[in-house]
């Protein structure tokens, strides 16, 4: 993210503007990825008219970056109708897709409409591995063909990979594929729990030693020394810092109109079918609660050695039962980085636990490109 965009995001936060919205148009998908955290059934998606109205409300509220995701966005028959309205309203539109349904005509239309970027999910450079993860034969071939078409339109494409046991051998292969295609590549080093809190899919994660190896590999993390340095004590300033953008200048809307602080933070703050977007943003008690979270008040984390450097995700902590408590997934990450276990992690390790909670949040650079995984990419 450019320094100016970050500065503008910060300015939006000060002004109380929801600068960045992630809108999932559907949870339906043509792929059935083994690691996906969504329920793919349609439980009553927002209609075309409801989405158009929502887009108008969001533009009026000052939303600038609009990420359209799913599920697979191209399964919505009205996708281009929605996108046209979004671009008429001059949103900076980013798309997350598996690209399987993108052919020449779709790529050309995306180019015409001035989409800012697309993130395409690729899990391996080998069809037998990628297709066994997506459960859609031929999906790798089609996704790659689509990436070429999108590039031919001059569109910015990023490949998003997720590290799992089944594809950990192929992370270098995916990097080489990205290079050949002339696109960036990100790696999310862990699978996220299901939105209903079910953690069974975390069993797909690699074990801790693989994660540690990746984090300490300079081709993945250019500033290894700094990133993996022993934690410094939290300053007064960091004690009062807020944890992330969720609810501060960013939020998430589900295909059913549910309003969450973030895609990875399923705390319902209202529904855009019942209230105006801006009213939820301004008045929701849940959002006010999220905005009040500071390191200083967190049980466990405020005394933790990792307090100042940890990428603690309040959404993950919420899914564990307490948005003001530790996120064991982040304790695991801090441990993988520094080799120092938090008290919470030690306590969890003492108990036999069915949970595997390795989930990395933010490693600045990976494979010569940025690792921006927040453990929550849906496509």
């Amino acid at each position: 993210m450019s320094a100016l965009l970050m500065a503008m995001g910060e300015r939006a936060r000060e002004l109380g503007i929801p600068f960045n919205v992630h809108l999932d148009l559907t949870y339906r998908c043509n792929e059935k990825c083994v690691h996906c955290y969504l329920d793919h059934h349609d439980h009553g998606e927002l209609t075309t008219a409801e989405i158009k109205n929502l887009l108008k409300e969001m533009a009026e509220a000052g939303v600038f970056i609009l990420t359209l995701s799913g599920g697979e966005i191209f399964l919505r028959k009205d996708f281009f109708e929605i996108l046209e309205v979004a671009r008429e309203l001059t949103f900076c539109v980013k798309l997350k897709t598996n690209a399987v349904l993108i052919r020449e005509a779709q790529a050309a239309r995306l180019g015409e409409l001035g989409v800012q970027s697309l993130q395409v999910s690729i899990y391996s450079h080998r069809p037998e591995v990628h297709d066994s993860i997506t459960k859609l034969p031929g999906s790798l071939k089609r996704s790659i063909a689509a990436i070429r078409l999108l590039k031919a339109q001059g569109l910015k494409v990023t490949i998003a990979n997720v590290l799992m046991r089944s594809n950990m051998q192929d992370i270098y292969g995916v990097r080489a594929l990205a290079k050949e295609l002339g696109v960036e590549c990100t790696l999310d080093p862990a699978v996220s729990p299901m939105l209903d809190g079910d953690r069974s899919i975390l069993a797909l994660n690699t074990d801790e030693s693989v994660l540690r190896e990746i984090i300490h590999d300079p081709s993945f993390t250019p500033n290894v020394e700094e990133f993996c340095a022993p934690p410094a004590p939290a300053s007064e300033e960091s004690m009062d810092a807020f944890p992330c953008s969720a609810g501060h200048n960013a939020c998430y809307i589900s295909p059913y109109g549910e309003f969450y602080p973030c895609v990875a933070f399923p705390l319902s703050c209202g529904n855009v079918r019942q209230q105006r977007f801006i009213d939820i943003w301004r008045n929701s008690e849940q959002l006010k609660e999220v905005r009040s979270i500071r390191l200083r008040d967190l049980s466990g984390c405020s005394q933790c050695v990792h307090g100042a450097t940890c990428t603690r995700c309040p959404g993950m902590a919420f899914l564990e039962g307490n948005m003001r408590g530790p996120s064991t997934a982040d304790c695991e990450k801090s441990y993988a980085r520094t080799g120092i276990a938090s008290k919470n992690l030690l306590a969890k390790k003492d108990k036999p636990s069915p949970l595997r909670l390795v989930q990395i949040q933010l490693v600045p650079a990976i494979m010569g490109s940025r690792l921006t995984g927040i453990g929550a990419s849906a496509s």
Partner: protein
Amino acid sequence: MIKPLYLARSRRIAARKLGEEILVMSARGSTLFTLNPTATILWQAADGATPLERIVESKICSEYEVNPEQALLDAESLVEDLAKHGILLISEKPIAESSGYGEERP
């Protein structure tokens, strides 16, 4: 006589008002700009139908104490700059509303 210059907002950019500023991201290279007050006036008035001279006269000279000729020269160079970045479309003829897409390949 100098030919009139018409300007229209490119439909390939993303834009939003943020406080007093207008934030614009060009499709070309995804470069982000914030528009200064003069650029904001020109941006808001760029309807494809009003010549630049008239915009300068009615929106800039009426607001600021400036020499009209100098203001027009400055505005021309600003508009050309914005056009170079793909933020505005400029033409010696009026620009139809639908023509903002597809003209600036990145």
